[in-house]
């Protein structure tokens, strides 16, 4: 593994983002906008705002990175740049770690800005530390990235890639305990939700926000999902085609 090729790939991905200021703006502004709406929707139920907004803060990075990664890697496949790179000395793992590094940095910036605004002007209370919260957000973002990378190998067009969000992420969101506590769901759904990575992303975020303990276990599980999905993602990059 060659660190300078990983860095070069991360820098290249970040340069591509930098040339697309509208996407950057949407990455930051959209979560703040939604948080603000939530604040006023639940104006008379501040407890509910705490619960829903808090969990959503952990979900945003995941949604955003899922979308960006699935479109970006699909583009690399369809324009031939991925194939071109894999003929060169770049390995699949270096390629993926380059993306992870770039999107990890993007998620860091997003998490710092969005959580600061949520905790400041919007009055969201995070009982745990903001530092841990940001760490959770970055892990969630990487999880979204890994999922996006993985599903992009099943898409032939950008339209299809985008459709994977409602197909893959929304069911996870519904089952994650964000809307209804998981314990009160039918047993079967609860069991299924145990196997979905987003469940642990929401759990961890909620625990950090309420100052609860035990988010370490959630983070550990997220990390396992992350490694497994990145492995699948790497395997889905093919050097040879028919």
């Amino acid at each position, binding site marked *: 593994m060659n660190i300078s090729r990983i860095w070069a790939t991360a820098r290249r991905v970040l340069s*591509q983002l930098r040339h697309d200021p509208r996407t950057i703006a949407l990455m930051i502004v959209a979560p703040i906008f939604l948080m603000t709406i939530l604040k006023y929707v639940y104006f008379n139920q501040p407890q509910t705002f705490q619960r829903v907004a808090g969990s959503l803060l952990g979900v945003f990075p995941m949604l955003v990175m899922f979308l960006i990664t699935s479109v970006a890697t699909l583009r690399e496949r369809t324009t031939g740049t991925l194939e071109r790179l894999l003929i060169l*000395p770049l390995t699949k793992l270096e390629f993926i770690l380059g993306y992870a590094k770039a999107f990890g940095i993007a998620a860091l910036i997003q998490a710092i800005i969005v959580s600061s605004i949520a905790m400041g002007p919007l009055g969201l209370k995070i009982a745990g530390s903001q530092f841990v919260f940001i760490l959770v957000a970055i892990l969630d973002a990487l999880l979204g990235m890994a999922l996006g990378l993985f599903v992009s190998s099943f898409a032939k067009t950008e339209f299809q890639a985008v459709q994977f969000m409602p197909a893959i992420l929304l069911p996870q969101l519904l089952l994650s305990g964000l809307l209804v506590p998981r314990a009160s769901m039918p047993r079967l759904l609860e069991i299924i939700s145990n196997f979905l990575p987003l469940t642990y992303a929401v759990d961890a975020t909620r625990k950090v926000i309420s100052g609860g303990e035990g988010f370490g276990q959630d983070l550990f599980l997220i990390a396992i999902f992350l490694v497994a999905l990145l492995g699948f993602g790497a395997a889905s990059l093919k050097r040879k*085609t028919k």
Partner: protein
Amino acid sequence: MANSIVVNNLCVKRDGNPIILDLSFEIRKGSIAGILGPSGSGKTTIFRAIVGVQEITSGKITVLGKPAGSKDLRNRIGYLTQSASIYADLTVSENLRYFSKILGTSEISVDEIIDLVDLGKNIKQLASTLSGGERARLALATALLGKPDVIILDEPTVGLDPLLRIELWKVFRLLGEQGKTLLLSSHSMDEADLCDSLVLLREGKILAQGSPAQLKSETGETQMESVFISLVKKP
């Protein structure tokens, strides 16, 4: 090792259709070889097999003494794809710097290449805003980075103005003199005379191979265009 590329009995099927049928040819080190054939005859498929991204049905390809697609070949082959594989949302210099980092070449060599393909005034421009010819030259530059020993160029001069074409052929010659092996494709016959050796391809099969002079004397024609036609008509 006199030959840089050796293709033996290559067969390729795509989507179940036979595309390349039992093809064999050799390309001498330090020569400029051309694969000529009409669109759809299989030129790109052969190149993809040589660089190792095309699954082949049978046959054997050896590049610089190693099986095609070997790890050792990854910084020794430059490949210009037919439709430019560059990042449209990066500038010219960002594109070149990225590819050079992946290859581990120096900044100086990037500047040399920029001069070579005459993109000096475009370095800060986004690749998506380049003209067709400029984009083709950027793609060519990424294929020449790192001074590869074997350079494979899929239709490198399509859409370029005649003056630039002459300039690029000077570059190709120079690379040949430096001992680099060039394999390029074209569907126009007027570049054939500039190659040291030719493979004439039609529907995945070799019509004829040899130097331009050989092919002309064999068919008794004076123009490459008529050589091709007379070979096609030959029973």
